């Protein structure tokens, strides 16, 4: 029947009949209809606009009929948005686009509405784990505007997690996603990836795709293949009909038009690689922005503006970056990078390193940065890994020469001899930990050490002919350190450390030897418990507040960042030990509501100021890559200064009353209460709640975006499988 309703002139046709009314034979029930170019079927979800309300209601059509007087009516079972039932949600976790289906008995369950009040179709996916519910695929999830899996009982005012029984007189299984049925001339149900209709043509032709269309989905991106169209002409007929319907969708369709076309366009791209979930993400982001609350959108845009501003700022003023304390550090990096470039050419084992030495010396003289004493280099670290080969030896010899020269010429605090070594060493796929990192040695006594290196040089080179004889090394260290008055205690500590680590060594190598084989990576060190680790439990130590302040004053505080947030303090200490050969105490910063879920931070107190600087420097120049592809970032820690009475915004007092009650206040014990709705403080509290929710939202968006950027960048990192496994 073709009918033109007088008021709106919107097209309407009835679809499939369902039956006749029981009592009133004039009433006809239907299963589907076409309205304003859109086809609706029973149990579809639709938008309905209420008068004066900015946002539409979403409901499910559970009955469609025409009365005796030829009036068209639908019975709509409502969905609740989370904000509408926030009082009953408590602390439940809600998905971003989750709705709740009404159930039970009472007001708000369902309503009868004239059919013309339908504004458009809505794509609501059921993600309930009920066995009768066809589980949606990932693509469908991305395309869905809303999801639901829980119901809200309007009578009991409670949320039910499972969908069971009867809802509004209808068995719950009708509420689930439609199963796939091929209906001629009706709804096309073809899976996006399954190519049921077009066979394998879709796989090859990427521009068009038959998307899954069941009555739940509104995004009818039915661009079909030419071939596909040929193969089934009646589908073609339907598709043709639907295509224009997409275009003509009424403007009142909740502003989805633009998003639909966007999605269509994107779909065209996406389809070319259905596996490219990354792009789907992009799309769904857009979709979310549009479908989400206006507030959220504004916030997000606002926030994006902030970002761009911030980015611009940070580009213009690189020193603004919080992590790198000053621009000076940048210069330092440049210096080191240059130097390293020179050294990379020295990777060839046969090459004499004299050239490099000189270069190093020049650099040392020129830069004014504090550097470690080169004597450190002497002590090829007893690393945890198996020593690899004879090719190492020439390196060692040359490396030893380097410090000699350097220590004579440059000022005591000299550098990156460690840095010199590492590129060359690792290039050889050596035990890269030839940075000795016995930084705990007071570096002030370098003059004393000048002589020592020469002596020890030979012993070491001899010693390294076979496996690194730990004994000799230890002896070397010990002797050298013996002259160092300041750090004798530390020596013992380290010596013990060596002993302990020696003991541990035999176990570790076998697993790592495979990874050693790869020339590209440096040494992959498995971070086991470092020798002093257990000492943490021996004594409690001072409270951290004080320790951190002290450390900051002494310059031994380092802030490590870009850690996995799940690491513990002990693990951080281990990492520092294995990566940089420094013993330290660490404290992982505890996560709060606004902390980034992607990055963890830790404050690390090292033994000396030089140790701290060394750590920072090495982390800056090189890249210490941890598992799952995170380069460690270090900087000098700057804890905030403590104010005596920090101002807390939000707690207001009326001065006069306060003075009057001052005496009483002193005696009052804790005051805490829930505010009553009829007070002014309640209103203010609501404003605060709003503020809190708003900031929650923009934190969430920020981290989501950062997560995305992080993932994109990480994807470029080609890691070996050994490392990839987190």
């Amino acid at each position: 029947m073709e009918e033109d309703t007088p008021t709106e002139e919107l097209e309407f046709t009835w679809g499939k009949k369902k039956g006749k009314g029981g009592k009133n034979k004039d009433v006809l029930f239907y299963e589907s209809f076409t309205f304003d170019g859109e086809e609706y079927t029973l149990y579809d979800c639709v938008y309905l606009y209420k008068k004066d309300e900015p946002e539409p209601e979403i409901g499910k059509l559970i009955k469609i009929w025409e009365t005796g007087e030829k009036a068209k009516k639908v019975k709509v079972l409502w969905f609740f948005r989370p904000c509408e039932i926030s009082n009953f949600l408590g602390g439940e976790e809600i998905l971003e686009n989750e709705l709740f289906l009404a159930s039970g008995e009472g007001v708000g369950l369902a309503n009868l509405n004239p059919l013309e009040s339908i504004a458009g179709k809505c794509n609501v996916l059921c993600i309930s784990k009920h066995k009768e519910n066809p589980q949606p695929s990932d693509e469908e999830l991305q395309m869905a505007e809303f999801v639901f899996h829980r119901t809200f009982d309007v009578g009991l005012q409670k949320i039910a997690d499972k969908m069971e029984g009867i809802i509004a007189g209808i068995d719950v299984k009708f509420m689930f996603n439609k199963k796939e049925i091929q209906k001629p001339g009706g709804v096309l149900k073809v899976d996006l990836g399954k190519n049921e209709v077009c066979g394998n043509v879709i796989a090859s032709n990427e521009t068009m795709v038959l998307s899954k269309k069941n009555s739940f989905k509104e995004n009818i991106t039915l661009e079909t293949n030419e071939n596909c169209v040929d193969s089934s002409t009646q589908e073609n007929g339907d598709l043709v009909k639907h295509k224009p319907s997409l275009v003509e969708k009424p403007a009142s369709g909740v502003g989805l038009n633009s998003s639909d076309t966007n999605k269509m366009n994107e779909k065209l791209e996406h389809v070319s690689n259905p596996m490219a979930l990354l792009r789907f993400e992009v799309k769904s982001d857009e979709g979310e922005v549009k479908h989400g609350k206006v507030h959220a959108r504004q916030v997000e845009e606002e926030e994006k503006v902030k970002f761009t501003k911030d980015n611009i700022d940070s580009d213009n003023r690189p020193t603004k970056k919080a992590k790198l304390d000053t621009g000076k550090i940048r210069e330092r990096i440049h210096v080191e990078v240059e130097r390293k470039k020179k050294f990379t050419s020295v990777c060839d084992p046969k090459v004499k390193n004299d050239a490099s030495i000189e270069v190093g010396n020049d650099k040392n003289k020129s830069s004014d940065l504090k550097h470690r004493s080169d004597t450190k280099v002497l002590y090829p670290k007893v690393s945890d890994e198996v020593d690899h080969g004879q090719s190492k030896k020439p390196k060692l010899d040359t490396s030893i020469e380097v410090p000699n020269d350097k220590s004579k010429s440059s000022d005591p605090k000299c550098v990156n001899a460690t840095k010199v070594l590492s590129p060359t060493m690792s290039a050889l796929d050596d035990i890269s930990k030839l940075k000795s990192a016995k930084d705990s040695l007071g570096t002030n006594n370098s003059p004393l050490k000048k002589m020592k290196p020469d002596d020890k040089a030979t012993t070491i080179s001899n010693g390294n002919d076979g496996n690194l004889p730990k004994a000799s090394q230890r002896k070397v260290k010990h002797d050298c350190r013996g002259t160092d008055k300041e750090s004798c205690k530390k020596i013992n500590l380290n010596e013990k450390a060596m002993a302990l680590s020696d003991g541990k060594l035999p176990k570790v190598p076998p697993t790592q030897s495979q990874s050693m084989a790869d020339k590209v990576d440096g040494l992959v060190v498995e971070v086991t418990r470092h020798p002093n680790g257990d000492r943490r439990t021996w004594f409690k130590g001072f409270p951290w507040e004080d320790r951190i302040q002290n450390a900051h004053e002494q310059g031994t505080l380092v802030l490590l960042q870009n850690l996995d947030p799940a690491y513990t303090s002990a693990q951080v200490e281990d990492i520092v030990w294995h990566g940089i050969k420094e013993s330290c105490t660490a404290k992982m910063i505890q996560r709060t509501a606004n902390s980034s879920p992607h990055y963890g931070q830790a404050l690390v107190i090292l033994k000396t100021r030089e140790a701290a600087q060394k750590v920072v420097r090495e982390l800056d120049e090189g890249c210490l890559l941890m598992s799952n592809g995170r380069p460690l970032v270090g900087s000098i820690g700057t804890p905030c200064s403590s104010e005596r009475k920090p101002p807390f915004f939000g707690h207001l007092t009326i001065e006069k009353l306060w003075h009057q009650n001052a005496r009483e206040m002193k005696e009052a014990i804790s005051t805490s209460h829930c505010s009553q709705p009829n007070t002014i403080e309640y209103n203010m509290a609501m404003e605060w709640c709003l503020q809190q929710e708003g900031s929650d939202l923009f934190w969430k968006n920020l981290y989501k975006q950062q997560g995305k950027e992080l993932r994109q960048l990480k994807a470029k990192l080609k890691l070996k499988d050994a490392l990839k496994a987190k």
Partner: protein
Amino acid sequence: MGTSEAEYAAFEEKVKRTVYLDNISPQVTESVMRTALSQFGNVKSVQFIPNYLESRNIPHCALVEMENPKQASVIVKEIAEFPFMILGMPRPVRARPAVANMFDERPAMPGRQIQCHWLEPEDPNFEVAKKLKELHGRHTAEAAFLLKKQLEEEEKLAKMQNETLKANYKKYEMVDSVMSDGTARRLARRYNIRVSDD
């Protein structure tokens, strides 16, 4: 890596029983928290999360361990429904279920291995790693900026509310004084308007 499964399981159980609260005034002490939350159940311990890095102005956060997970979830629910204020108004505290990373001395997840290695400059990953570091720097800057913005907005809101409160109080005082010193009554007599307190 040192911790047993049982230890970690015990820790996880503790996490479930704990509530994370923030937007707490710096003046709130442990005993205040305890008393405040004891109306919801048996409070086993209160731990404030120390703030070492951010500016000192941000409100405090605390981890409150309850006796069982039910009590913890009740707190979260109640505070979500009604604004709960501790030691001052009108800024309400916010409660969430706690997460493992919020705890201080926590056992490491068993069965996890960390590895690390130094990259050499020729390694193509080196560049990527450098970029990752930069990205990280940018992200932290962004987060810091956002935090600053948030604090500014909170300050603004507090100031606004203060103004409103003052204005309201002034009005109230005025009305009160007019009533109490008889001016109202006199005026009423003058204009033949009834003013009575019944």
